[in-house]
């Protein structure tokens, strides 16, 4: 079994980092990883940052975050969104995605998650 402890710690450090450039690193390095665990950790870190750009990566990009091909990654991202204390920014990003995104599947996913967040 592969030991991703160091990478996990880097993802956690980037999640806690105040530099906005950390979002770019997480998106480029983490969400493009072939390792499901790394993609899952990255998507959750992006949601926990709770910033517009980081949430946009996890919500509006096809194949990433809630739109990931892996059910585990998608569900973990949704759970992280539902666990947010302040959901305002996430709901704003979801609303924009439902109204304006070009891809139907992404819009449907965003609509479902938005409904879940409204209920939670």
């Amino acid at each position: 079994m592969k030991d991703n402890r160091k990478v996990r710690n880097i993802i956690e450090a980037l999640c806690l980092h105040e530099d906005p450039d950390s979002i770019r690193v997480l998106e480029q390095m983490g969400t493009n990883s072939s390792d499901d665990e790394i993609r899952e950790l990255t998507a959750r870190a992006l949601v926990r940052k709770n910033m517009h750009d980081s949430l946009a990566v996890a919500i509006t990009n096809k194949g990433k975050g809630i739109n990931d091909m892996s059910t585990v990654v998608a569900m973990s991202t949704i759970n992280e969104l539902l666990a947010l204390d302040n959901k305002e920014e996430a709901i704003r990003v979801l609303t924009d995605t439902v109204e304006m995104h070009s891809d139907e599947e992404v819009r449907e996913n965003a609509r479902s998650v938005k409904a879940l967040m409204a209920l939670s």
Partner: protein
Amino acid sequence: MAIIAKIGQVLNTPISVGKTVKHSSNPFAPSTFKGNVLTADVFETKAAKPSLKDKLKLSAFVGSIGDAFPTFRKGIESVAAFGNRMKQGFSSAISKINEIGSMEVSIDFATPAKAIKSGFESMVDNYSVQKLRKQDVNSLESMWKELSGLNIAA
């Protein structure tokens, strides 16, 4: 020993069942022993003639044997049960001793050693979250690339 010899003497004497002897000189003639009437000849011996006091004692003793046996039996049974319990307890104790004997007594140093190792590693670990947070994003990106270059999709 003397009293046992006398009991044997009494028991060896023929006893007439259901037969009553009247006009006997023996004062114990009307005495019954489990429904049997003791004849005058019971205590008649040529060698040693028991005294009146001995006859009274023996008669009382013989009469009490029948009643005493159940008590003896109960006593014997309880003793047997006690012995069985002791045996069981002893055998379980033996098995416990065997179990203990087969066990190896050892002190596990693994857990404290692991904790010490973990604490030491956290001190010297350059990849702890606390240390990584202090680094700039570019450094983290470089480290990540170095660590998981194979994990990044081409």
